């Protein structure tokens, strides 16, 4: 029975793993950012639920209340949320630039294009490019 008092941490763990799963499993970069946001909120819940005291009230001082929840996690998480939106905005603008440069926001497509570029650069460095083009022409003929 004692273990049941820990349910807030289990919710945090489940949410955290859902977010983590989305970040790993999906190839779409926008979905990865949504997964990161869920991961982030799970950490917010961890902090805020630790600060709560049953039967207390929000930490705004008033004469008719004696017991308040812990204000420190609230402060930390409040700023974390705003920093979170700032980093999300930065991530989204990176996604926009990736879409413009690669024409896709799927991780797999981007990696294939990168490998192709790398391969061509190496061929160029070894001076194989001309031979390849003549080889292509031979094939076309």
């Amino acid at each position, binding site marked *: 029975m004692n273990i049941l008092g820990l349910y807030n941490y289990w919710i945090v763990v489940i949410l955290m793993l859902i977010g983590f799963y989305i970040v790993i499993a999906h190839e779409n970069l926008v979905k990865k950012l949504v997964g990161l946001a869920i991961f982030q909120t799970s950490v917010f819940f961890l902090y805020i639920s630790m600060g709560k005291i049953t039967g207390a009230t929000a930490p705004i*001082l008033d004469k008719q209340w004696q017991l308040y929840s812990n204000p420190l996690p609230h402060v930390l998480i409040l700023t974390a949320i705003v920093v979170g*939106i700032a980093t999300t905005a930065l991530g989204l603008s990176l996604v926009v630039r990736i879409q413009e440069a690669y024409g896709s926001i799927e991780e797999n497509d981007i990696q294939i294009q990168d490998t192709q570029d790398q391969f061509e650069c190496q061929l160029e460095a070894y001076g194989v490019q001309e031979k390849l083009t003549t080889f292509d022409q031979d094939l076309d003929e």
Partner: protein
Amino acid sequence: MGDLFAVVMLSGIYSLLSAALFLDLHAVDVAFTEASVGAGISTLLFLATLKLVPRYDKKSRYKPTLATGALLIYGTLDMPHFGKADAPVHEHVAPRYLNESMEEIGVPNVVTSVLASYRGFDTLGETLVIFTAGIGVMSLLRISRQAKEESKSKTPADMQQQVILRVVAKMMIPLILIFALYVQFHGDYGPGGGFQAGVIFAAGIILYTMLFGLSTAQKIFNRKVLELFTAIGVFLYASVGFACLFMGGNFLDYSVLRHDPVHGQHLGILLVELGVGITVASVMMTIFFKFTWRTVKHKYNQ
């Protein structure tokens, strides 16, 4: 789920629900921030991105197996129980904040006094992070002045024809802006403060931009003025800190600002929160404008 629009809307709903949960956990300021930032601005920025990237994804995915969860749950077994007043979290610095902040700072909202005064240096850092993120977005989504001039003449707002939305918004926008100012200056006594007020103010202007067009909004909120204001907020915050130094106190120790320490704290918190509000509002507006200019560029210059 292949439709990214549905994904983004659901994550907005998730944010709003988690704001309700934060309220239940007695974190009123956090709930306020999550509702305005997570459900409001974040969803908006995701939608602005969706205008620039394909709406449907390819449904390809990896299949990872996660054993981490079991380990994490095992790790929670030693944690203090939920809602217990004798948990270690409540025993170190929190009682001091709750018992003595009224005499030292004189502000009923303990979250505000911790945020702006006890941990003022921390908040200065957070404001700088937002400023830096704003600069990052500005440099990533830069577009040339020529492209901007070309598209300026032909950018009608997408929702210019929606008469009902326009009339309702005309009534709503002044109220939203006044509410933002209330949240800004009433943050000492109730939930609220610079972060939330900045985001709400930006949301009001963004609503205006969406309905009346980007070039109309930028007549009032010029790009250069906005970029200046992002810096002015951080500058105001830091200069309050330096003013404390020159008047004989520590950095961001507001007690020396006036003859009475509590009055000094009041003045310091007011100025610092104003700095935070200015920076957050102008960074959020700048980010949204950058995304919208990008959309305009794609629409007309291809």
